[in-house]
């Protein structure tokens, strides 16, 4: 029984990593590629680590497997965020099928200022003060 569970975990883990690799080749632009590589690969490594923890079933190995899972969960999103952000601001082209981009109008490439886009709404809601010019 436990053999079947371990085998399933290992196989599905490797499948997810394979998916990540295929995605890296097939997907059209930087940001969508970041999606495939970080998340599918992280899930794959987690599944394989679970399988190895079940196989050895020793305190040392289990502790290390969970430490690896924890550190992958902590570092993968940060790496994806930094690479994606750097790529976006350096000006890598988005795929032609991209439906919307709410960041672009709020970003000033000269001053690197990134507005939240809520300021205009707030100004509209602002109560008039006495110091306002007529």
């Amino acid at each position, binding site marked *: 029984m436990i053999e079947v569970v371990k085998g399933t975990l290992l196989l599905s883990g490797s499948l997810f990593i394979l998916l990540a690799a295929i995605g890296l080749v097939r997907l059209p632009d930087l940001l969508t590629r970041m*999606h495939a590589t*970080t998340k599918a690969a992280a899930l794959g490594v987690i599944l394989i680590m679970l399988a190895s923890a079940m196989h050895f079933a020793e305190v040392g190995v289990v502790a290390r497997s969970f430490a690896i899972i924890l550190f992958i969960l902590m570092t993968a999103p940060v790496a994806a965020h930094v690479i994606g952000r750097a790529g976006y601001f350096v000006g890598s082209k988005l795929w032609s099928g991209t439906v919307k981009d709410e*960041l672009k109008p709020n970003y000033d490439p000269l001053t690197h200022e990134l507005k939240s886009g*809520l300021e205009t709404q707030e100004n509209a809601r602002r109560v008039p003060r006495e110091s306002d010019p007529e």
Partner: protein
Amino acid sequence: MTGAIWNLLLGLAWVLLSGDFTGLNLLVGMVFGYIALVLIEHQVEALKGYPARIPRIVRFIGFFIKELVQANLRVGFDILTPPWHMKPGVIALPLSARTEMEITLVANLISLTPGTLSLDVSDDRRVLYIHAMFLDDEDELRRNLKEMEHRALELFR
């Protein structure tokens, strides 16, 4: 925090008294310690809210794993079939998280769920810009992300 430390101390006491120095026995001790803390919660001011937090964390982990697998399968399906079903785009998500710690946590969780990748926080820390892979139903995506943020913040407040 005090609750967590007491829980650990009770677990260590259990290990010392039973004389069985293994990780599993520490886990058993922590479970018993947790039960003890639940029983005395309403008498000790410092422990308020600690017992309720553990089931919340467990539920959150379950919810997160479900999201992770579901969305991974969706991305995988799109990678394997030739026509692109995805509609990528960058959306602005207003944040309820205020402190740096909370924003980091929410941004990382959003990056970890496949289909969404946090790009940047606006300078005034009120909006998180997210690259999403499936914008077929933007309202639903926003609702899901908000729910995740809400659940994550619940753990720390």
